[in-house]
């Protein structure tokens, strides 16, 4: 079964996904410092759920995740151009985000970047190309099994 989605709808899902990522990380540190009160724990679980749902809608069902991780042979010429542009732009964005985080931590003399933030950056690195493709592609068709 297939359903068509507009670019605007997909942009909302992508923005939701990244907003949830930031919220999950922020809530993790808040919860950790306050020893995990019930409200924050529940909120964290809700945000995580929305995070996974938005990830599936924005990247998996639209096939953008598969597109940017495919070999060149399985892409047509237009898709290759789109993926190459997305990889180029995502490299720039990811570098800037990494530098901001590293220098931000260094400036406030906090502990070094830990595993949780590293996991967030890893997620960003893997999904940014698909997010960029999804941000600009038109007439998106979602494939439901």
């Amino acid at each position: 079964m297939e359903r068509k989605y507009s670019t605007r709808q997909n942009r909302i899902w992508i923005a939701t996904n990244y907003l949830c990522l930031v919220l999950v990380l922020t809530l993790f540190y808040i919860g950790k410092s306050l020893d995990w009160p019930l409200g924050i724990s529940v909120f964290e679980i809700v945000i995580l759920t929305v995070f996974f749902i938005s990830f599936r809608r924005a990247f998996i069902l639209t096939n953008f995740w598969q597109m940017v991780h495919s070999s060149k042979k399985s892409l047509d010429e237009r898709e290759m151009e789109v993926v190459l542009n997305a990889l180029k732009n995502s490299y720039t964005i990811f570098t800037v985000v990494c530098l901001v985080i590293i220098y931000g931590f260094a400036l406030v003399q906090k502990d070094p970047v830990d595993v949780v933030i590293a996991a967030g950056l890893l997620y960003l690195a893997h999904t940014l190309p698909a997010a960029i493709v999804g941000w600009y592609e038109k007439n998106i068709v979602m494939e439901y099994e």
Partner: protein
Amino acid sequence: MNEAERIEEKFKKMCNFYNNTLYIYNMMLYLDNSNYVKETIKLQGLQKYMESRKLYNRIAVLRMEKNISRKELAQSIGVNFQTIGYLEREEYNPSLDLAFKISDYFELPIEFIFSTKPFKPLSEELKELKNNPKGGI
């Protein structure tokens, strides 16, 4: 007509023959044994030429005539069906290879399917054909 004018005319004819907007010249003219004149005639349309031009096409019309979907056409020529959508909306210029594949599929010359100028409406072309049966589209 002096040497510079003669060479300029020759270049213009070449460019008209190849039907492009580019005529850039940077010519070294040896007028005599001891002198040469560097003639830079004109950079007109060079920048425009270097940018990718919009290509117009009749893919949507031809597809509808054959009564096939974008998916069927995409499978026949080996691209994703969304690429067909981009082609039909003229938001993507195909490579030469893809243009030839489309041309082979529809069994029409490339210039009948793609153009750098907007195609006239079919009704207008049919009227022209009617008024001038010996001429082509």
